[in-house]
């Protein structure tokens, strides 16, 4: 079980790192367009969100991947996944003409229904890891610091 949860944590971290990295490396305007397409934020908040969000995603993924502040990182993953589910869900309900979710930039193009499945999986994965945090912290920096602290 320890190894499985370790793997789940690594996969969660990698998904966020890849997604955040692609957005952070791309011109900012591309992600701004994605945010505008979902039509959920007030116009004044869209540029700030487009600028900050990729970095938050990247750092969250990195911390989860390395197991640094694992508990906080996993909670962030849950928060982001819930947020994505809500945003994508409203786009499906409102039948917005979005053909690609924009989650991974131009790296992978996913239709909205596939994103619901992906986000739900991320949410469940993070919840399972949080439930057995000790196992999820296997080979983590948190574990290393805890050992040194003793």
């Amino acid at each position: 079980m320890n190894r499985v949860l370790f793997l789940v944590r690594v996969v969660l971290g990698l998904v966020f790192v890849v997604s955040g990295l692609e957005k952070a490396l791309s011109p900012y305007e591309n992600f701004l367009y994605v945010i505008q397409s979902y039509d959920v934020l007030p116009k004044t908040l869209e540029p700030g969100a487009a600028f900050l969000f990729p970095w938050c995603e990247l750092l969250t993924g990195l911390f989860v991947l390395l197991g640094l502040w694992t508990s906080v990182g996993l909670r962030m993953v849950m928060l982001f996944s819930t947020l994505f589910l809500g945003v994508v869900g409203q786009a499906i309900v409102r039948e917005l003409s979005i053909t690609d979710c924009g989650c991974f930039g131009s790296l992978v193009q996913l239709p909205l229904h596939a994103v619901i499945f992906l986000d739900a999986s991320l949410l469940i994965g993070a919840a399972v890891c949080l439930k057995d945090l000790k196992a999820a912290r296997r080979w983590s920096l948190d574990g290393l610091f805890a050992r040194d602290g003793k």
Partner: protein
Amino acid sequence: MPRAKILVTVLLSFLVIGGVSIVKVLRTPGTIEGPLSGPGDRAHTRLLGDPAAPVRVVAFTDFQCPACAQAAEVVKILFVRLPGVFSFEFRYYPFPMHFFSRRASVYAECMAAQKLFWPFHDVLFRSQMSWGRMEVVDPYFTDLAVSLGADGVALKACVNSGVPEKAIDQDLGEGRVRGVRATPTFFVNGKMVVGVHDLEREIRRARGEDFL
């Protein structure tokens, strides 16, 4: 809370943000700011408006993307609303996930050779939903082109010549270098604007209008 852990967290965050920012700058060394190729660099012009207009809009577009069809309508409205303010240049940016977009671009380039690009462009966008669902598009594109006054023989020769492919690849290459990842992507006097939401504001801003 161990001090070392906080130190590692801060260092790691700075390293990642700094490192990624440096890579981002190195990946696009001045390309976004540098001048885009002009209409004269293309075999056939796909230009609307006065080339001497103060604002130059270059659009990377995919014929099969619904947002591009909407954008084409918005651009028409902007030409009425802002007469003489901007010129508009079309660039092909067909995504592989849109099966017939590249083929549509090939026909469009051949129509440009016969100076019939814009009528073909308009009908392609208007009928996007129907040809996008066809199994074979060539007969439809040919009929459409001929109905708009194209020389069918010259069109067929052009489509099979491989020349339009070079024009499309030239546009695709330019778009990739400039970080185009979605369509439509506009460059308003060199400034990137993705999607049509902010296009009017950026054109007005490029003209020097204050915008609040």
